[in-house]
């Protein structure tokens, strides 16, 4: 029993950054901006959090820096897609590549003499635990009960009709992208809090799992949160059972490692058609 509780706890901890990133994806995609760059924004967030926290020796300043970096990356996506009308997938992917290369460069000895693995002051993880549960609830209320919420839904559904109703779709989208930056920055900072250091590519595809959870959750905050935790149950399984025989069968390590990704893929294949995509996703 104690093992089981521990196991659930592990899944929760693993799920927190994914939930935060998925909420970032939610605000963006609900406004009609396709966002496959969650991974990159998380990575920027993590890297800058670690850098600022190390140089200032202040965890909270690190968090602010990480969020700021993720907001900038998110706004870059906004400028490229909304002002320069670049394809949303290409822009998102560019930001991921920029993040993979950029963070690696920023954190290399050429750029900074702080050694890898030096201890970094971090924001207590409990803060993120609380946010991962609170933010989906707040978004849910926001979408249902506020002016900004219905405008966000409207713009994501049909920007042209929204404009006709006196709404400025570009403004709504940029606000949504700022929120995306904040949530992705939090997700990145959480990963740093977890490990106490930054390492290259440390987000390891969780931005994409967040995206999958968003799709499976039908772009709704609470189901998306549940989907994130459900995916991470499998990661927890991996950590718990890797290298152990189950009913006398020894599963190869590689299978365990690929488990969360495999489950994501299967879930997407099985469920994607049942959910309705925001109709204006990717539209000008």
């Amino acid at each position, binding site marked *: 029993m104690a093992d089981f509780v521990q196991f659930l706890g592990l899944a929760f901890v693993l799920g927190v950054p994914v939930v935060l990133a998925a909420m970032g994806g939610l605000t963006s995609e609900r406004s009609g901006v396709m966002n496959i760059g969650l991974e990159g924004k998380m990575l920027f967030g993590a890297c800058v959090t670690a850098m600022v926290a190390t140089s200032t020796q202040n965890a909270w300043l690190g968090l602010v820096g990480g969020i700021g970096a993720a907001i900038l990356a998110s706004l870059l996506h906004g400028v490229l897609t909304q002002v320069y009308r670049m394809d949303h997938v290409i822009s998102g992917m560019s930001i991921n590549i920029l993040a993979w290369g950029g963070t690696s460069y920023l954190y290399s000895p050429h750029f900074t003499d702080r050694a890898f693995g030096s201890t970094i002051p971090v924001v207590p993880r409990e803060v993120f635990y609380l946010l991962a549960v609170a933010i989906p609830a707040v978004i849910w209320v926001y979408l249902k009960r506020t002016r900004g919420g219905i405008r966000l839904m409207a713009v994501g559904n049909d920007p042209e009709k929204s404009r006709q109703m006196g709404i400025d779709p570009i403004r709504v989208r940029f606000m949504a992208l700022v929120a995306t930056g904040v949530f992705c920055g939090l997700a990145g900072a959480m990963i740093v809090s977890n490990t106490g250091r930054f390492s290259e590519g440390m987000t390891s595809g969780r931005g994409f799992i967040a995206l999958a959870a968003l799709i499976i959750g039908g772009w709704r905050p609470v189901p998306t949160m549940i989907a994130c935790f459900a995916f991470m149950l499998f990661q927890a399984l991996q950590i718990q059972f890797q290298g152990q025989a189950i009913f006398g069968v020894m599963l190869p390590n590689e299978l365990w490692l690929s488990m969360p990704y495999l489950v994501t893929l299967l879930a997407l294949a099985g469920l994607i058609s049942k959910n309705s995509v925001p*109709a204006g996703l990717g539209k000008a």
Partner: protein
Amino acid sequence: MNQPIRMVGISKRFGSVQALQGVDLKVEPGTLHALVGENGAGKSTLMKVLYGQLQPDEGTLEIEGTLRRFAHSRDAIAAQIGMVSQHYSIIPELTCLENLMLGAEPGAWLEPRSATERASTLADRMGFRFDWNEPASKLSTAAAQKLEILKLLWRESRLMILDEPTAMLSPADSDALYASLHRLAAEGATVIVVTHRLPEVMDHCRDVTVLRGGKRVSSFPVAETDPRQLSEAIIGRSMIETQVEVRVGREPMLVMRDLRIQGDRGQEAVKGATGELRVGEVVGLAGVDGSGQHELFQAITGHAKILGGTLDFLGQSILVASPRQILEMGVRLIPEDRHAEGVVEDWTLEENSSLGLHRLAPFAQGSRVNIRARSEETQKMIDRFQTKCRDRYSLMRSLSGGNQQRFVAARALAHQPKLVLAFQPTRGLDIEGTRQVYAALRDQAQAGSSVLVVSFDLDELLIHCDRILVMEHGRLLEPPADLARDRQAIGALMVGAA
């Protein structure tokens, strides 16, 4: 609103096209004013200027005695101007109440209870009923139109612009709409109706302004004019509505027996249709929108799931034929939604000309497309109904709706099709375009094809078709022989009253 709305000398140019040229419009407060004209006459452009969606190159706008200049629709909305566009601006993912408030929410925090109260009061005033928490995606076309009217009231619009408000409505719903508009005008609202339908102008409006080619032709009180004078003003010459010489079809082309078709939501959309189309005839398929016309067309083109019955084309069953085979057999479609089913908007006219037909003569050359033949064919398609475009390399997107429709109709009629299925082939077309398209459909039938036309305008079918069939609630009905062209008998079949 106590003073007239005055637009003076409005000009607007799009690239090389002069859409509006020094247009004046004066609308008296508290009246229904009709704005009529052919496609491309500039009606929508003028209304977009009034609603702040477009900024005029020249000209002034005077509302309540003051000159105004709108940079966005929201400026116009603030000046108590509201517009219902032809395709509505309802967001299906929001509830009815959210749609009602959208863009004019009372505060940052929505208070559903007080909003519902105000919404219900407005609805009661108009005699409408809504389930406010229902998703707007469930609304019928007529209900969506009503919600649009309530949106105007919610925003306290004093000037209401309605663009083709009855295009998608049944006659009964149209009458109800005008009853609402009269009531609003009686309460002091000023209404501008953009329309193609002269009977509506004659029956419901006080004044009418006619645009032609981006200029104002005339403006007069409706009481001092008649449909003949009006149609002369619209198209520049008298147009006499004549009924065609009815032709009797020859051998059967398409035969269906007890055909049952599944609809998009799994329902039985067509319930045992039996009937035939014969060589040489143009058959009109009348009926209220959503009676199964769409599914019937889908089934004949090989896209729908057929639950039972038989469907023979030229003596051969096409129940299991693929859309490609059916296309190769000579069935052509003028689709209901040309954006979804007819054209690729980001392609040029030339690329669109062979869309779906690329395996057939004259486009195919082995496994390649014969580029030269395609160029020639495109030019023929453009010329056939005088599609207005820069050249055949123009993007489909750059054409107005009416011109896209001309091109799509020309494509369906190219290369001797055997059966032409036309779903509202004249949607968005003006009087002259409509006449031309029907003339071409009739010529095609004369040349040995069959034509099946769906239209929600019964008069249009009565004027142009040899025979009328009716779809009502998934059933295919044929009026009795002695009442085959009786407007009332057919109308009764359409609404299930016969």
